[in-house]
């Protein structure tokens, strides 16, 4: 695995150290573009590395050191009541000869307090087969400590006639543990390979394909060095579970994710160059399979999970001389099916569908950048557990209005202020549990209630860009971001403080 580390770390560093291109953008331009995510980019929407040259025309690098704190009673039962995270991340884009290299690397250390019913990495990833216990608790020993590293390297080849080839390699490794008995521990590893291609059929039309796979693995252990033996819950859906006392136990979740995506980009007026309006269309699918095994010497089935996702995107960008506008319609459908390890038939299933429309307009006038956006999101949620005869469904509507203002100073610095106000509304819900269990009342129904609670949403940010003469071309940014969900069932608040270093 060392060669992989070298590749990932090397790619990230290489991407940040390569020679700058000749477009002569300012660091502020780069930072602004990197943060505002404007334009039609097949790299951003579908990880098509062959489309990197169409995304950024100049190299850049950003290193960020940040801390985030998240707290509040409004949380899903398997989420921590408090979470504090520290992160160091770096990303960059550079040309190496005629190749273009993008790299990113992020290390995050997280401390979670008061989590119950989750012994794993992510209890919300759809797989219903989880290990858990009821010990949330206040003591320090009940705190989860997690360390995760995420990296991604992408390469875009030189143009080969009308073709360009790309490759993206995402990698994620992490582990977490709790000191309180039975001392649950997990290790997670994900490695993917996503080859891609871009075909420029002419000045108007371009076509891209991304297809690849990912291997995932999560190992769980409980009980080593434990002095007492609480019950281990094996969650099997929405209320269905098995439980038993545990001394030591091991579990392996291994899976694959296959995905494919077809993309097209159409410029309506190619003669206008960068000012040409463009349409971006994208359809894709993702097929995820996971198998759970318990034990090492004589493994036993712990369930199977399959998830199929279809997604589609249509976006239109209309640049103007000092700004532009973008409208995007995105939709996806996720269907998850769990095969119960005991009854060996379909146990828990879900069908989630979303449709979102984003409309954004931005303008750059003398020293001031303005961005305004509206986002409307409709979601349909449907969860079923045939063992507990539980079914819940809901329709959830969310609307946001987003404002960003950036005042640039003559010394290269700037102030940036952003605010988002929104509301989440639940027009229809339904909950039935005809064969309830103990977990129906303490896990399934509370989760349903949290997910179907109307909320007022408020986000804000303030940032300051500045230069330090001694460090020449570097741009520094300090920003504070705040987000809150306010409901009748409690609030959830998040605050983060970040320092960014941007260099060309």
């Amino acid at each position, binding site marked *: 695995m060392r060669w992989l580390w070298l590749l990932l770390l090397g790619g990230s560093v290489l991407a940040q150290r390569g020679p700058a291109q000749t477009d002569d953008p300012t660091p502020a331009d780069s930072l602004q573009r990197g943060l505002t995510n404007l334009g039609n980019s097949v790299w951003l929407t579908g990880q098509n590395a062959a489309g990197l040259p169409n995304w950024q025309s100049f190299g850049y690098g950003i290193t960020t050191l940040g801390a985030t704190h998240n707290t509040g009673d409004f949380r899903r039962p398997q989420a921590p009541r408090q979470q504090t995270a520290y992160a160091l991340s770096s990303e960059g884009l550079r040309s190496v000869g005629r190749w273009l290299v993008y790299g990113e690397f992020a290390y995050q250390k997280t401390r979670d307090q008061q989590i119950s019913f989750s012994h794993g990495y992510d209890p919300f990833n759809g797989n219903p087969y989880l290990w858990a216990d009821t010990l949330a608790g206040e003591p320090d020993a009940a705190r989860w400590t997690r360390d995760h590293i995420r990296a991604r390297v992408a390469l875009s080849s030189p143009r080969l006639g009308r073709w360009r080839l790309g490759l993206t390699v995402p990698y994620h490794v992490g582990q977490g543990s709790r000191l309180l008995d039975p001392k649950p521990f997990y290790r997670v590893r994900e490695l993917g390979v996503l080859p891609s291609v871009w075909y420029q059929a002419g000045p108007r039309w371009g076509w891209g394909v991304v297809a690849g796979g990912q291997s995932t693995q999560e190992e769980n252990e409980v009980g080593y060095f434990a002095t007492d033996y609480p019950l281990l819950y094996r969650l099997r859906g929405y209320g*269905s*579970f098995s*439980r038993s006392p545990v*001394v030591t136990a091991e579990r392996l979740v291994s899976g694959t994710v296959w995905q494919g995506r077809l993309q097209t980009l159409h410029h309506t007026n190619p003669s206008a160059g960068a000012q040409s309006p463009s349409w971006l269309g994208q359809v894709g699918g993702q097929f995820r399979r996971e198998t759970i095994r318990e034990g090492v010497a004589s493994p036993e089935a712990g369930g199977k999970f399959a998830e199929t996702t279809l997604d589609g995107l249509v976006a239109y960008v209309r640049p103007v001389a000092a700004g532009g506008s973008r409208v995007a*319609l995105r939709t996806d459908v996720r269907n998850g099916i769990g095969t119960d390890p005991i*009854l060996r038939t379909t146990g828990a299933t879900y069908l989630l*569908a979303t449709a979102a429309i984003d409309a954004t307009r931005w303008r750059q006038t003398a020293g001031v950048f303005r961005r305004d956006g509206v986002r409307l999101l409709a979601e349909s949620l449907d969860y079923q557990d045939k063992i507990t005869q539980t079914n819940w469904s809901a329709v959830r509507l969310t609307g946001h209005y987003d404002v960003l203002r950036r005042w640039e100073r003559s010394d290269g610095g700037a102030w940036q202020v952003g605010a988002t106000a929104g509301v989440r509304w639940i027009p229809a819900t339904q909950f039935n549990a005809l064969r309830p269990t103990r977990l129906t009342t303490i896990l399934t129904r509370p989760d349903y209630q949290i997910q179907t609670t109307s909320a007022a949403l408020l986000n804000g940010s303030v940032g300051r860009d500045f230069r330090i003469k001694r460090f020449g071309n570097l741009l520094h940014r300090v920003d504070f971001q705040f987000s809150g969900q306010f409901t009748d069932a409690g609030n959830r608040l998040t605050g983060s403080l970040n320092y960014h270093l941007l260099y060309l």
Partner: protein
Amino acid sequence: MTYATRFIMLLFTVGAFWSCKQDDPIPTVTLNVNALYPATYNQPNATGTRVMLTNTADATSTTAVADASGQAVFQGVLPGTYNLSASRSLTDAEAGTLTGIRQRVELNAVQNNVVIMETPSARIIDLRLSGSALGNLVIKEVYYVGSRTPAGGTYFSDQFVEIYNNSTDTVFLAGLCIADAYGVSGLINPTSRATEFSSSSLTQGTFQQNVYVNSVWRIPGTGRQRPLAPGQSIIIAQDGVNHKEAALNPNSPVDLSKADWETFNERPDGRDADAPDVPNLERLYFTGGFDWLVSVFGPGLVIFRTDNFDALDKVAIPGAAATILPRIRVPNALVIDAFEALQNGNSGGFKRIPTALDAGFVFADDTYNQQSFRRKTSSTIGTRRVLQDANNSTTDFEKLAKPTPKAFN
């Protein structure tokens, strides 16, 4: 946008198509339980018997009542492993009709680890009831799980047992014995096995007629000493101190400095401190430990009387080394009341108390979580509570978040 709309509709249609594939039914089984009176009764079918079916995987229980043919029907049972228990209270008149002896009787039956598989026709199981006459003293509350210290450590010195006079007459407690049953409470370690007395060829045949106990304590005195009025109770503490004190465990839910008795285990090394304000029980037999610590995973307890404790059999644990102390065999006939707690809902196979004395068991959600088990109130006559006593801990006791010594709320 027309094409985009059509595209989205297509996605939703495909999604709906997938969901149709998910409608495979979960297989279920119909279970018919035939509740039968003891063979010596003059009728076979135990009409009105309450039968409880408990899934060992998640401890979910359902109850059915036997009809006129003695059959209790459970529809839609998921394949799996279950524990079955049944109880039937006979009034004086009913007992007289069935046995010729007009005395209230509680009948119970248990069958654990019943594997129910998917079958096209109904599964039929026979449950033969057995029972004993009711006593006057009952175990009112048992707090055994212990508590957590502020530092997250474990604290188990605050265990107690409360005994209640459930009769209409004063009961004299002198000579009353209390003991904990031998055997582990569940699969605490991978090698944990049910009590050897239940499986050994030497004792298997008489296991259901006796309780094999570890340590035995007795209330001192003779004759008409230690009176306990109807509706009153006594507390027997492991340690009769205020456990909430800072030096002990401020998180403990109980102050036992006013307990009626404590089980002081006098040792040369003084490891068990004697609380001076709480009188000590007589230690008749002790099998080890610093204190009378009953299992925090779930003890089996009995209260009994005997005129001659020394005459009780001491039986070696089958297969145990000669250095291990034998256990005391207490015949069912001496037992006044019993309580059984096990580690969890899957632990029915670890029962130590004979079915005739206690057909069920309780279990806490965890160790050291302050939960306690208190007998339910059957009725209230004036200010006196009559506690439920069906010789079945599963149905007789309720699980409390915190103990309630000498109280009901």
